[in-house]
């Protein structure tokens, strides 16, 4: 932790090497946040790149190094919202197009692990599609909170800071997000036993 704070402090002072290390440490997280939010590789890449360019430009103004994580997610959230606005004005991509075997499927880009069981990979891909579909059906506000909490592991306080809302609002959105996901999974008859994967 001390190392991370030191890295952030150095990056804040304009140390390019420290900024590079920070980007490498956080790139996957921000990319995955964007990917789960959009279920779109290009948009997630766009958001991640914009986020780290903004980080490079503005990290000098970061007052408290302990708030780096929520600060970084604030930037990512803002770019996600910006991309979403652009996307809404453009033609949307059907989830159906993302299914394995279709031309735009993400599975083509990801199934490059030689030696993996193809059937298992296919099942995993189908499951990802289903779960991602459930996430996409949540409202934008609930999706932000669920991804940050469930996949990014932020505390409610950090999520509240990142979204500039109260902790109680975050928890309330999480409550309704979980209830909505529960109903969706029940409708699709998806249970832990049914999917049979190891946690």
């Amino acid at each position, binding site marked *: 932790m001390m190392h991370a704070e030191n890295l952030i402090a150095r990056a804040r002072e*304009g140390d*390019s090497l420290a*900024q*590079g290390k920070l*980007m*490498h440490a956080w*790139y*996957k997280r921000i*990319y*995955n946040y964007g*990917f*789960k939010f959009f279920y779109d*590789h290009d948009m*997630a*890449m766009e958001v*991640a*790149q914009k986020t*780290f360019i903004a980080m*490079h430009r503005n990290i000098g103004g970061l007052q408290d190094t302990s708030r780096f994580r929520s600060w970084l997610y604030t930037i990512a959230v803002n770019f996600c919202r910006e991309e979403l606005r652009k996307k809404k004005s453009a033609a949307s991509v059907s989830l159906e197009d993302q299914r394995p075997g279709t031309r735009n499927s*993400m599975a083509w880009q*990801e199934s490059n692990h030689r030696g993996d069981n193809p059937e298992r990979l296919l099942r*995993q891909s189908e*499951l*990802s599609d289903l*779960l*991602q579909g*459930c*996430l996409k059906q949540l409202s934008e506000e609930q999706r932000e909170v*669920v991804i940050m*909490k*469930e*996949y990014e592991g932020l*505390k*409610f306080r950090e999520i509240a800071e990142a979204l500039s809302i109260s*902790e*109680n609002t975050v*928890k*309330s959105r*999480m*409550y*309704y997000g*979980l209830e909505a*996901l*529960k109903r969706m*999974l029940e409708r699709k008859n*998806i*249970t*832990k036993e049914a*999917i049979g*994967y190891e*946690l």
Partner: protein
Amino acid sequence: MNYKPDEATLVAYHFGELEGEELKKVEAYLQEHPAERKRSEEWRQVRSVMAGLADKEVIAPPLIVGNNERPIWREHYFRMTLGIAASFLVLLVAARLLGLSASISNQELRISFGAPTALEQVLDKAGVTQMIQASLEENNASMQTAWDSRNQKLEASIQKNLAGNSSRINSLVKEASAGQQEQVRQFVGQMQTENLKLMRDYLQLSTTGQKEYLEGLLSDFSRYVQDQRKQDMQYFQANLVNMKENTDQFKKDTEEILTSLMASNRGSRTDNQKSY
């Protein structure tokens, strides 16, 4: 137990972000409420399923950043200092061009443009008093002169105005008087004419009226006399009739009395004969 945790508290408990007294209360609440316990278990199931959505592997692109160090002349503090120094230099040059000089001597600050000049003779208290007195006298004299001059002008102006106004008033009065005489004459003449006409009309009307009145009066009087004579005649006739009726009645009564007397005398005579 009336405690019921709200949505936020339940979520915080579920994600292990509750501690202390609140945590104990929620645990006790869940022990007593199996439905809420079931909900918490369902959330756990949902989260287990959602955890199947794994992270994507991605390689971070290289971070290419420009040189972040700015030259010293682009630093804010340097530019501000330079600005202050430049302003000061401008002031100095301007002062030099204007010949501005400042000096302090004998507790006295002297600021001047061009070469400083020596002070004139210093005045003492008596000199200042004399200057003030002279200035006052001069001022008084000047004011008196101005006052006199203004008074004379005012007097002349008043006289002139009076003279002008008097002649104007006289002429106006004359005009008014002449106008009034003419008007009075016209008015009297008109009145005389109107009176003459009125008198004539009145007399004419009066003669005709009197004539009509007398005729009426005479006819009324003759009608009255006739009526009165008629009434008297009727009264007289009525009295005559009454008198006649009374006379007749008297005659009748007298006859009846005489008849009854004669009858009674006849009866008494018969009785007497019988008694005899």
